[in-house]
């Protein structure tokens, strides 16, 4: 008997009583102003969310937000400040040294500041390796909570996907919070 068959047989043999799935769907908190809540909670997790003003030029805004960024990686149409097309790298390691990555998020979650990014660049490393990460998100795509977010994933195909909430962080030394453990040292979401 293979280990698989043995394990499955053991499981069947040991289950004593079966339990049904709960009949109710999980209920989640709802906010009167999802955008305001998203902005507030983003700050509480060490990130920042800002609203692009009507008529404001996004490339101009990025320049003022990141005056020192030299290597800027993005494959998004309409982003002209980029200096590197991440889809053209041969190996993910070539993204090392990127100052700023600019990517698109698909769903924002008001309860926890999460942004859903289904892999939409050649190498997922782009979400983790830049010193700073900037996510562009359609503000009408903010949902209240994770239940609503996952319900939307049903129709979304992805090979890899990540919910990102704030910059990379650790408190492993004496519980002192330090931002920028391995991933982005700063995370911003521009709501367009």
């Amino acid at each position, binding site marked *: 008997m293979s280990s698989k068959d043995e394990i499955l047989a053991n499981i069947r043999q040991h289950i004593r009583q079966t339990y049904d799935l709960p009949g109710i769907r999980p209920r989640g908190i709802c906010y009167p102003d999802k955008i305001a809540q998203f902005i507030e909670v983003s700050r509480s997790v060490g990130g920042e969310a800002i609203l692009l003003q009507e008529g404001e030029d996004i490339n101009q805004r990025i320049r003022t937000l990141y005056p020192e960024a030299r290597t800027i990686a993005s494959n998004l149409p309409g982003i002209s400040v980029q200096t590197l097309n991440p889809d053209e790298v041969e190996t993910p390691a070539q993204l090392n040294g990127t100052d700023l990555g600019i990517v698109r998020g698909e769903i924002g979650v008001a*309860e926890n500041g999460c942004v859903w990014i289904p892999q939409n660049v050649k190498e*997922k490393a782009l979400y983790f390796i830049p010193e700073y990460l900037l996510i562009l998100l359609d503000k009408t795509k903010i949902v209240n909570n994770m239940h609503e977010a996952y319900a939307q994933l049903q129709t979304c195909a992805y090979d890899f996907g990540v919910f990102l909430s704030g910059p990379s962080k650790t408190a492993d*030394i004496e519980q002192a919070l330090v931002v*920028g453990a391995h991933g982005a040292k700063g995370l911003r979401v521009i709501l367009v």
Partner: protein
Amino acid sequence: MSSQHAKAARRFLDNNEQAQWHNRTLWMVREKRDRLAMQLPEWEELRNLASQIKMHSLSHLDYYLSRFAARAEANGALVHWAKDADEHNAIVLNILNEHKVKKLVKSKSMLTEECHLNPFLEARGIEVVESDLGERILQLMQAAPSHIVMPAIHLKRQEVGKLFEEKLHTEKDNSDPGYLTHAARLHLRNEFLTADAAMTGANFGVAETGEVVVCTNEGNADMGTSFPPLHIVSMGIEKVIPDHQALSVYTRLLARSATGQPATTYTSHYRKPRPGSGMHIVLVDNGRSRTLGNEEHLQTLKCIRCGACMNTCPVYRRSGGYAYTYFIPGPIGINLGMLRSPDRYSGNVAACSLCYSCNLVCPVRIDLADQIYRWRQQLDSLGKADRVKKIVSAGMNYLFMRPSVYNQGLRLAPSVNHLPRFMIYNPLNAWGIGREFPVFAKESFTRMWEKGKVKKPQNKDAYEQ
């Protein structure tokens, strides 16, 4: 008559300042958890659902596991089944050898601790690099984690500073956490870029989609899996849940319970292997299927490893993770250790005051304290009961069954107030160590009641003073 745990706790408490810090800091984490939980009116409902979904998944585990494996294979992952730790380690070694892996970068996994994977691989010439900061610190120190979420919580910054000075050549006497973390970032970045393979644990396996979900704050699992051509997932069979709706419940509970954050920074969904690379999932039983048949302890399999039961436990906070003999400490560790081997780990069941705080915070509502209580009842039949405690208990039993003797004893009790100190505080009385004996009232409640001295309180407030 002190237990193994009490003796080890004594050593922890010898460093009084550090012990106080440990206690306070973990309580702070517990308070953060409370604040976050209270922001959600549906919190208790979520805990109920989380418990029910796990009970359902566990009692249909054969179905969900098969489904998960089939979907994962359809996604292009290779699925392996390991009956025990040895088989797990052999499978991992085999995969690594096939790919000629010299260096493996790992993100935190309690399961690989359980299987003692690192020493096994190292003995066979494979370099293993832990990438969670806390885990890396301990690996460099050749020490074990003392908490499942905050593995290095028992260390002071100066100890980390000294270690990094020696191993990473950081500045002398610089123990600033920001500085040290940055040094580790540079050091580990190099490891990520040069590793031949990555290994992660799994927080959840989703049967409907065959994807593996990994949650971290540092992003180390993501960095690890982004570069090398091989990703191995080590996953306990109990981690399988039905679908995304279930996942939405657990992702809402996990970080809030663990560290008082609304979500972990990275909640990553690995569905298909990275183009041009391989993904292997090793499903590990190692005693879990047997626990399914243990009705008294089945619920331990619901655990999502958030660590909340440790943070809230008054005994854990004041004794530290190393006071426990099993590698997972605190209330859940006491129970998991007993399931592993009552013979080796029964000393831990004493590390509980039965305050039930763990039951109240556990996001999946495991009856942790009830289980510890049940283990204690079984100690005698396991031949593990403490001889002195047994004699004392027999004495108490005798007294409580005979009210007249008990009352006579109480009448004499105040005389203890006048005994010389050496008669009360001596090595035979373990309870006298570090504790002051209470002053006995001159009269017992029963005597006062008999004499009509007990008055009804004037108002409700009197009770609350």
